């Protein structure tokens, strides 16, 4: 064996030997049968019913608390400003001779107080000291029956905006013509105490008629000449008023008021057992009075059902005291709040028709004790008289076809389902609620289109309450879903999980709810899984 042959043999040997070094780990694969819980979730009562509607009790029972505004009393009806501020005319018929006037000469200039005429719309005894205009206009009409153009200057000295901006306007009135202008009057604060500060309903004005400075030469006033000025309020809404509002009786309604008891729920039927019903009146006005419900009608627009309120409180005078203004000119109010027990009324019957509107007719008598506030009646536009319904249902509710839907984002991309060769998902509902559920569960793509249905019309049995009306054992429902290739694909591709629940009280009975009721939702996997090392 020569040297070269030896080297070749040695190299060959080394190569053969080291070829035995395993270059990669063996990757055998096999199927295993797995049975294991995968996901678990619990559903609480607050997940089903908005927690604004429920309140926990020390014994874990749930009180359904409905606190809903029934209606508000419209402030516009209580105090309104008269439409006409004043009408003023000026005739020169008794003028012995024409009077020559040069451009810029003043014909008349007056500063004067003038009262508001509340009697014009049958509100008696109103003595306002201050008011703030929320919105509205002043209409300004001037008639010039002379040979010269006039400059008419009009102001309300007691109307100030932004603390320093007194209402003042000046308009040219062409000879022999009339003008008709409208000015914004919102945000003006009115001092109605007159120039001396001791009056009521009194505004202080400024008025001047001037031969317009642009006239060319002398103009003569003749006995046949006359002038007329009319000032009106238009569409005035008072934001705030103070003074004495008088003893008056106001009727409101019948008016419709939208009502939504179950803001968060779509529900076909709901009834309450042994509910405690209160009517809460919140008076934000600085006026005491008597409040009388003439008629309160619950209306279901869909079914055209109506139920009128019946009970001893109907057509009875309910005294409501006045609110107190604590800030000096600031909108700080301590309202007067009074609740009235309507438990003996048929209010639960009204709720059972699932009203979407209330029609109310009420009457309010103001200042039944006269000027007991010493001209400190007040109101704010934003703080009217409000009427609320408070219902506390402690004994049980009956829910019919309450519909809940929810869409959750779904991230299935990371879920490794490729290794599952066959199997099923087992959905286990351990329902501790005395409600049954009909459930649909869909998987959706990014445009929220359904790409697969996991559950359709799946019935989840409700738990049966015991003798003490409390559920002791949850009801278990198991639903099996075969894990097909399509479903595996959908689970990976889905972007949203969307479910619909239709909830019904078990056995169509009133059921009492406890806060520790839960429904446990669990997903078990029962599948053949391919292990790949």
């Amino acid at each position, binding site marked *: 064996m020569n040297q070269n042959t030896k080297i070749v043999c040695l190299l060959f040997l080394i190569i053969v030997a080291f070829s*035995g070094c395993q270059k990669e780990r063996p990757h055998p694969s096999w199927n295993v*049968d797995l049975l294991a819980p995968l996901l*678990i979730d619990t559903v609480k009562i607050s997940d089903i019913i908005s927690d604004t509607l429920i309140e926990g009790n020390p014994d874990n029972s749930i009180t359904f608390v409905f606190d809903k505004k029934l209606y508000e009393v419209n402030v516009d009806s209580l105090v309104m400003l008269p439409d006409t501020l004043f009408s003023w005319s000026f005739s020169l018929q008794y003028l012995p001779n024409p009077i020559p006037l040069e451009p810029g000469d003043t014909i008349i200039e007056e500063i004067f107080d003038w009262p508001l005429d509340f009697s014009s719309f049958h509100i008696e005894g109103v003595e306002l000291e201050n008011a703030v205009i929320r919105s509205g206009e002043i209409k300004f009409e001037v008639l010039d029956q002379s040979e010269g153009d006039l400059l008419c200057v009009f102001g309300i000295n007691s109307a100030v905006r932004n603390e320093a901006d007194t209402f003042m306007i000046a308009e040219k009135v062409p000879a022999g013509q009339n003008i008709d202008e409208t000015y914004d009057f919102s945000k003006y604060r009115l001092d109605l105490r007159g120039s001396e500060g001791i009056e009521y309903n009194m505004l202080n004005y400024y008025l001047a008629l001037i031969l317009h400075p642009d006239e060319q030469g002398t103009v003569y006033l003749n006995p046949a000449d006359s002038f007329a000025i009319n000032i009106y309020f238009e569409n005035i809404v008072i934001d705030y008023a103070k003074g004495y509002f008088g003893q008056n009786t106001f009727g409101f309604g019948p008016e419709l008021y939208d009502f939504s008891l179950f803001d968060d729920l779509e529900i076909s039927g709901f009834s309450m057992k042994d509910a405690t019903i209160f009517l809460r009146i919140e008076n934000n006005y600085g006026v005491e009075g008597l409040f009388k419900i003439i008629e309160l009608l619950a209306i279901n627009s869909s079914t055209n059902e109506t139920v009128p309120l019946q009970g001893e409180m109907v057509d009875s005078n309910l005294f409501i005291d006045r609110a107190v203004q604590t800030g000096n000119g600031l909108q700080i109010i301590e309202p007067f709040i009074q609740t009235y027990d309507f438990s003996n009324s048929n209010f639960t019957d009204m709720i059972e028709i699932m009203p979407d509107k209330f029609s109310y007719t009420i009457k309010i008598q103001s200042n039944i004790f006269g000027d007991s506030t010493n001209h400190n009646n007040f109101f704010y536009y934003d703080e009217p008289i409000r009427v609320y319904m408070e219902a506390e249902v402690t004994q049980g509710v009956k829910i019919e076809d309450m519909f809940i839907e929810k869409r959750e984002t779904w991230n299935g991309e990371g879920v490794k389902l490729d290794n599952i060769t066959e199997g099923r998902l087992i959905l286990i509902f351990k329902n501790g609620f005395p409600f049954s559920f009909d459930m649909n569960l869909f998987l959706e793509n990014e445009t929220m289109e359904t790409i697969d249905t996991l559950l359709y019309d799946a019935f989840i049995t409700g738990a049966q309450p015991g003798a003490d009306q409390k559920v002791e054992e949850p009801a278990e429902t198991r639903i099996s879903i075969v894990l097909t290739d399509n479903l595996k694909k959908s689970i990976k591709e889905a972007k949203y999980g969307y479910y619909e629940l239709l909830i019904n009280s078990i056995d169509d009975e009133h059921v009492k709810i406890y806060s520790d009721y839960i429904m446990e939702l669990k997903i078990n996997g029962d599948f053949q899984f391919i292990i790949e090392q």
Partner: protein
Amino acid sequence: MKQLLSILFTIILVKSSFAQIGFYYPYFPYDPAESTEWKWQVSAFANEASNSNAFTNEFFNTANKSKFLDKELINTQIENMNDFVLAGQIRNIGVGAKINSKKNKGNKYLYLGIEHRRYLDIYLDDDLIKLLLLGNKPFAGEILKATDSKYYSIYFNQLKGGMGYRFGTSEANQHFTWNLALNIGQNYDYIEVQNSTLYTDPDGDFLDVTALANTKLSDTVWAEVYQMNGLGLSADVEYSYTKPDDFHFDLNLRNLGFIFWNGDTFIGEIDTNFVFDGVGVDTTSSQNDNLPDDYSYKSLRRILFKDPESSSFTTGLPVSLRFSAGKYFASNQFYAGLNGTYYPFLSAKFMFEIFATWNYKNKLYLTPVVLYSSYGKVNYGLCLGVNIHKKVSIHVGSGYLNSMFNKNELLGKGGFVRLTFIN
């Protein structure tokens, strides 16, 4: 023909009954280079042994070839199992050279070599194997226990250098050699499970888990043979006494040393008892936030072992103590003896074999061997040695000929090959 090819293939792919053999042939430790007149010897060798007390050859082969383990195969395997499963593999591959001393020819020489070593040692509770192979569903309603299970795998390369000494007379001579090795570690996996149980609710509603386990892993799950994830040192020493034509005795200690593993290691412990009833879903967020998005080995170990450390650690090597002894008969025409190896740190702690060699004119050696080991089974095989003009020697053999080609036999396969050039 197919059978013959299989034998050749198996031999070439380095299956051996020995953890390590020197340049001499243990079944007839006659040294053809006993003459002092040699300059160098180069030897390439490879050996491998795979054993189990429970896994069958078919199961092992299917797994080792990364094939699919079908239900029938798994069920058969499960039926074969005892209370515990022992399995292991030892592989050594290398080349080495002896360079004779110029001044003291034949009595002193330098050794240089490079070797690759792999040890796989598995001791698993049968319940753990059942769980791994069948899943938990077949055992729903039962408690599966893994009282004491270990998985140990290490592979590393060694750069060796040392000296050999021969002294004595022609009546009796002794050899003493020592080697020091620089160990270059590729991979170390150690997982120990103790007193762990799993109970699966019959409906799968919950899993009751008691887990007591610890693990130490080196940087890469399965490093390439050229990678370096740790460094260490070790030593081999060997002593032999030979009385020509009479008897031979040999004792060696190998891999007395360590590897210091560094890099992105993983050290974790779990000691917990919990009932798992599903991953909680936070309805306000994505429902899969709590689910692992990766079920790889690396990801799962992160889930199992909370708060793992990633600090360097040192492990000892799988030390082996080997002895060999035999007697020559009939003017060296026969040699019979025994070999034994003890692995104090492995679960499969020993291997023992007896053999008898027929020597044909120092050119051909034919050796039947009978083998017994910690795996609790007897294997036998045949080894062959050929000397060509005292320049080339070839040694091949296997102690597993009774089991290697029977797929239904318990795993027992291996062999060795060595080629030595003498100049």
